[in-house]
């Protein structure tokens, strides 16, 4: 195992009120080296929060994140960062994640310098090399972000993340903001880089077709918990949790024109993370809920060696 996320809880206090946002409510996940873990789930279910905790931008309220037996305790932000910088984050938005007043070359160089990864005289050629890795030419160095297309900017973001020589790349919606035809390019690039450098990915996306394309293992999150976990084909082709089923049934598929039944959708209100329903958090929307569902929180239990589900009606 490389990355172990052990029962992580993250609460955000809300200013001027006593309530808290329960962003993560006990998440446990493992990623092995070279593997890609895909994370899907509703907007606001805590995906980006998890990403920020892993790279040390924030620390968990409770629980531990371990990287090769180095436990990252609460408040260990600096330790994480000065350490081997194992994890780097690529953000969703290629427009706001790059400094508009910094030339591309500078913005990559900055990372190499910050991590003290090259001798002074080697830095420039390293920048060129990184640009080449993401399929960009050397003359891009002198350009500013606004002079690049969305796809090019996302390539620069990836080059910048790679500059820190991470083992783990956290990709938070890396292609959502891109044009359809450009998305394919960036996805192909990610697949190539993974192979070339033996990288481990955590790939977060709303778009299940992208997650299907790249993941080995998929975790489905709902209101700060993992409700289903399994290999990509198990989860997508044989979903067991009622939420995963609804999610997959709702994917609009362009290969079947007009076939999607627009009238079926999950009924019920989406609960707010400040006020999570008792018992199974999904019970207010679940089509197969039984009275007991509002009393007990179902644990994530294996139904096969590699597939686990948190639903008391599925795992009996």
């Amino acid at each position: 195992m490389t990355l172990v996320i052990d029962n992580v809880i993250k609460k955000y206090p809300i200013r001027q009120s006593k309530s808290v946002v329960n962003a993560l409510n006990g998440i446990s996940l493992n990623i092995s080296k070279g593997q890609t873990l895909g994370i899907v789930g509703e907007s606001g279910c805590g995906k980006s929060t998890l990403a920020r905790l892993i790279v040390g931008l924030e620390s968990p309220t409770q629980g531990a994140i371990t990287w090769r037996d180095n436990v990252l305790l609460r408040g260990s932000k600096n330790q994480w960062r000065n350490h081997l910088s194992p994890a780097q984050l690529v953000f969703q938005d290629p427009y706001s994640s790059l400094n508009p007043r910094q030339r591309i070359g500078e913005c990559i160089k900055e990372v190499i310098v910050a991590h003290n990864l090259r001798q002074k005289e080697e830095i420039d050629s390293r920048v060129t090399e990184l640009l080449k890795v993401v399929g960009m030419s050397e003359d891009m160095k002198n350009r500013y972000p606004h002079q690049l297309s969305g796809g090019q900017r996302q390539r620069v973001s990836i080059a910048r993340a790679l500059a820190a020589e991470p083992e783990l790349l956290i990709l938070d919606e890396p292609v959502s903001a891109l044009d359809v035809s450009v998305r394919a390019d960036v996805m192909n690039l990610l697949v190539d880089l993974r192979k070339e450098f033996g990288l481990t990915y955590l790939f977060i996306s709303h778009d299940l077709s992208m997650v299907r394309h790249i993941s080995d293992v998929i975790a489905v999150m709902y209101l700060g918990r993992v409700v289903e976990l399994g290999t990509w084909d198990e989860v997508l082709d044989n979903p067991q949790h009622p939420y995963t089923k609804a999610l997959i049934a709702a994917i609009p598929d362009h290969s079947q024109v007009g076939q999607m039944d627009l009238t079926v959708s999950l009924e019920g209100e989406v609960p707010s993370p400040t006020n999570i329903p008792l018992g199974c958090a999904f019970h207010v929307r679940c089509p197969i809920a039984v009275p007991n569902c509002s009393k007990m929180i179902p644990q994530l239990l294996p139904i096969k060696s590699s597939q686990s589900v948190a639903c008391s009606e599925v795992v009996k």
Partner: protein
Amino acid sequence: MRSLISLQGLSIKTSSDGRSLTSDVNISLIEGEALGIVGESGSGKTLTALSILGLLPRGVEVASGEINFNGENLLSIDPERLRGIRGKEISMVYQDPMTALNPVMTVGNQLLEVLDCHNHDVKDPESHVKQSLIEVGIPDPDRALKSYPHEFSGGMRQRVVIAMSLLLSPKLLIADEPTTALDVTIQRQILSLVSRQRSRRQMSMLWITHDLGVVANLVDRVAVMYAGRIVEVGTTKQIFNSPQHPYTQGLLASLPVASSRSRNRLASIPGVPPKPWLVGQSCSFADRCQFAHKKCRESLPLLDARGTKSVACFYPIASSI
């Protein structure tokens, strides 16, 4: 059948130096019909939509063409009348929901104000407004009514804006990337809501999106834009099952199929689109097109109506049907 709205030969340019941003766009919709607009980023989808409402950003203007809505030319109409149409008969959901919301006013008051402004007669405005939030899946609608826009997540704001746009039962809903920020179950809820409105009230829709899965399942016809022009238009089935323009085909080929078992390399379209004002008398896709011939660089292919489908290409891909 008479169209509810029609754009004829609409071209948009920059005001300062007259650079052409869109050229000769023709779109027409009958009552209850839904048209999807897809295409490369920067191809002119948003500008086209904004021109209908007379809301083009500063520095950009209509160069030529006509926009007819219910028999009135919106380009020459009295501004007061246009304001009356906007919001009530035509409403729009923007790419960025914050542009439609007032940051210093509660969501409840904003919704009530919309009813008020257009003298919309409902028996119980408060519950009407609350119901509109429930329909778009806002959790805890009572609290939402008292909240300010910044207290919502991006996805929730977008739902508020959608609720607002449907409040007055418009004849035409223009939606610009309305569900991109939403996850698929909520997206489905929104799509089902607008589809219901559409069939119940014969609402027409102009739906702009990069999400081809949504387009394939929501609209009757699709227009594909590239570098400021419509390059192909047809029924949804025709566009998805037998695209004829090489760009449309490339676009579809670059998508992973949601239900496919294969995880092969994705096809992509090499190169970037040209600036629309630099295209001149040639096919704007020529530099990226694998079928380009000499003719493609010497003259401009125009849309040619063949039944319900038309394609702006000298060598369209043979239809498989």
